[in-house]
């Protein structure tokens, strides 16, 4: 049995792990919303795969929109769309996850098998996590092989979008990522309604509570 992933689920843990990657939660949420909004804009008349594809693509766009100004670099070599940190040590890709995405107690997988580039990235991730071992072999083949790859994993249903930023560790024989070394798990985004405000249902008199001072002279 493989070692379970380290989960970063509480705000403090999440933030410190993100900070180490040069990221922050507000920024990730913005990216998530950017992709989600694009998905929601898809007409009901579109082919069924289109909203998911759109969300995947627009999440990449969103990530680049917010990270390029922070000196991250978009990279599409071998048609493998990534965004790479300024020091070249972190790369983020976007993938759709299964229904276990964003749930700390479950073990999510990517929904679809991934290609050879993902396989190479997962391999580098594994080698980078072996203490004291230089990355052999792949170092000559892949420039930037000191770069660890993280997956922005998304899963959206009619009610919510769940997402996490996770470092892939193992793939199955078909190429799905099935295990992770680190999972930074975000609170889900509610889709069908506004989050209820606790102060929202009171009498109008209770709302706001502005007292306009009027004094008799």
């Amino acid at each position, binding site marked *: 049995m493989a070692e379970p992933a380290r989960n970063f689920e509480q705000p403090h843990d999440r933030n410190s792990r993100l900070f180490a990657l040069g990221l922050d939660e507000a920024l990730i949420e913005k990216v998530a919303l950017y992709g989600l909004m694009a998905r929601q*804009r898809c007409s009901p008349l579109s082919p069924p795969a289109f909203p998911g594809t759109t969300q995947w693509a627009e999440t990449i766009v969103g990530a680049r929109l917010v990270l390029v100004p922070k000196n991250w670099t978009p990279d599409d070599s071998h048609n493998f769309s990534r965004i790479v940190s300024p020091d070249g040590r972190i790369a983020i890709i976007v993938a759709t996850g299964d229904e276990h995405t964003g749930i700390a107690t479950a073990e999510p997988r990517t929904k679809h098998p991934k290609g050879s580039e993902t396989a190479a990235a997962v391999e580098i991730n594994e080698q980078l996590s072996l203490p004291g071992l230089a990355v052999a072999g792949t170092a000559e083949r892949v420039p930037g092989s000191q770069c660890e790859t993280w997956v922005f994993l998304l899963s959206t249903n009619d009610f919510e979008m769940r997402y996490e930023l996770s470092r892939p560790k193992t793939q199955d024989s078909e190429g799905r990522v099935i295990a992770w070394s680190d999972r930074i798990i975000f609170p889900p985004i509610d889709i069908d*309604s*506004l989050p209820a*405000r606790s102060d929202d249902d009171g009498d109008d008199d209770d*709302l706001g509570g*502005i007292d*306009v001072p009027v004094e*008799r002279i």
Partner: protein
Amino acid sequence: MFTPSRLTLARKRRGLTKKGLAELIGVSTRSITAFESGELAPKPDNLKKISEALGFPASFFEAEDLPELASEAVSFRSLSKMGAAQRHSALAAGTIAFALHDWISDRFKLPAPNVPKLGPGVDPETAAQVVRAEWNLGEKPIPNLIHLLEVRGVRVFSITQECRELDAYSLWRGDQPFVFLNTQKSGEHSRFDAAHELGHLVLHWHHDVPQGRPAEQEAHQFAAAFLMPAQSILATAPRNPSLNQLIKAKKPWRVSVGALAHRLHELKVLSDWHYRTLCIEIGNRGYRTNEPEPRIDRETSQVLNKVFAALRREGCTNAEIARDLHVNPQELEALVFGLAIMPLGESGGVPARPKLNSYPPLELA
């Protein structure tokens, strides 16, 4: 001593031309012109007729000059829909509101004005953010906009019955901002109007010529951005909503479902296609004229209610205030209609609503 400018004011207040007034009291138009220019003072019997025809006490015409409100200083909503008579009437009502305001200011200390005036060229979305920042509102919904305006020193009065086609108007009188609201619209409509007028006060304070469509659009955008700040809306708005979801979502923002749909479209949360579909459905269900539940209660004035409550406790009556200002009590009631309850009645102890039946019947749109 007859004050010619007061005749002009009273005539305009009633939406009458000189010719119209002349016909009402059976004198020549030339005579009215002479009265208003100060060339001639009306004889006592004519003054009595004028007083009766216009519904102002004779003493009104003998008090000191009231500064006339120039239409240039005022941002009128729906200006194009309005005839000159109505515009004049609204401005004249504004002049009387100033007199009431000054009367109140002599007796009560009210919040000092604190409304930012932004330079020309600031876009409405930014302006709304600036005002929110200056007033420490964050990104939260605004529970009561009239109270917010009042605590920031804006004086709010009601647009009178004669001008009910008008939605709202606003102006700076020196350093004092005023907003006039049509309180016979729905609560949501009136609240949006108040935000719209705040937009004019913030963005168009430097205008000295009547403002056209672009200014109206800017004020409209300001209102939407101020009531529904982009970041909150983007973070919390329903995604790809049905109309029913949208109706549910409007509640915290206290806006009409139409205004929320428009804002979501403006922020590109709704696609053109989706927005169009929702608009058609809103129209089909009659929500354009009849806001669906949950509806908001009409916002009222805290300043005016506190002032009148204090006066009522002191035994001061509506009639006494009216007498001080040389107008009919109804004239004052109209200025606070829907915003506050005036101390009606000679005893001064009975709180009562302004009498709706003292006005012409409501016109159904």
